[in-house]
């Protein structure tokens, strides 16, 4: 359940940024989570309430942008959709690929008052 560590990381970013902006609390937070990032969104939702309790994020609306996975084959340059980190090139079957998209795990924006 490393999602708790991730949630606490999000809380820390939100606390720091809210203080910097001299705001009181966050009303909305936008996250980016790639499907290859290693985070289960259900698990993140599960730990969310306890992680944000008594922080600036308590009662904030959480919006998650899910970023689809995309890879590029090193051998034949084919670009392809990836659901799993071990997906091979659909064109030539190679396991060597670069991941172009889908590893994202970031706080995109905060709406504060």
């Amino acid at each position, binding site marked *: 359940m490393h999602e*708790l560590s*991730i949630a606490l990381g999000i809380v820390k*970013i939100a606390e720091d940024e809210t203080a910097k902006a001299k705001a009181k609390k966050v009303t909305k937070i936008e996250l980016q989570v790639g499907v290859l990032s290693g985070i289960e969104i259900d698990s993140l939702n599960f730990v969310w309430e306890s992680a944000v309790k008594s922080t600036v994020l308590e009662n904030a609306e959480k919006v998650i942008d899910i970023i689809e996975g995309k890879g590029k084959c090193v051998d034949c340059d084919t670009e392809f959709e990836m659901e799993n980190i*071990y997906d091979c090139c659909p064109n030539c079957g190679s396991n060597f690929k670069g991941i172009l998209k889908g590893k994202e795990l970031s*706080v995109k*924006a905060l709406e504060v008052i």
Partner: protein
Amino acid sequence: MCGTCGCGSENNGPKILKPGEHKHVHGDHHHHQEGHAHSHATHHHHDGHVHTHDHSHDHKSKVLIIEQDILQNNQVLAARNRGYFEAKNIFALNLVSSPGSGKTTVLERTLTDLKDQIPFYVIEGDQQTMNDANKIDALNVPVIQINTGKGCHLESDMVFEAVKKLEMQNNAILMIENVGNLVCPSMFDLGESKRVVIISTTEGEDKPIKYPDMFHTSDICIINKIDLLPYVNVNVQKLKDYALKVNPKLQFFEVSATTGEGMQAWYDWLKIPS
């Protein structure tokens, strides 16, 4: 940090101890069940296009564009650890596996056989107990135990604190035995030179694709308990093929830490790190 509520109470925070040091527990830590809140998680699916939002509102709220990696804190401290190891010519290994793969046995055997040739230091990560640190201490190898409490993995700040206590000499090998868990430790860089995933022949050949993130981020794969191959229904080649599907650059060592079979190749690699 407390794994139940995420609070930073002293009792539930990670404990970083030398064998023989005592833990001081102050009071109790309670979790109260309070009123239930409900979250409004909305899921947006991106289809690749970039869209801009109009963030003007009629009340006095404002939008802060952050674009910050959530793991950034861990990565910054990991980079600090890595720089320290490089400056001291310390080859740091992060040993990861599921519980029961024989991580500690591989480590004990390695230390017993090589400690007269190479100076070793060890950081042990477990949720509870000093057991592993005591085993290493019995071999006269300097060791620090990190008890993560409810935490399921080591993070770079814990390693940073443990390293400060170790007071390492130059030109040595640091073995960091992570918490037994094939999922969570994969996301947390500790500043190691190489990541070593250990899997045993009793675990089933498809484990690399069941837990791909760990195999994806590792450099070395030790297949342990090969002495049990006659008794278990596992095809080692198939296991390797699955692992290579996840990570084509993975390098393998097939060993039995109990009988010592295959350990020499691993030792040769340790002595001349590629």
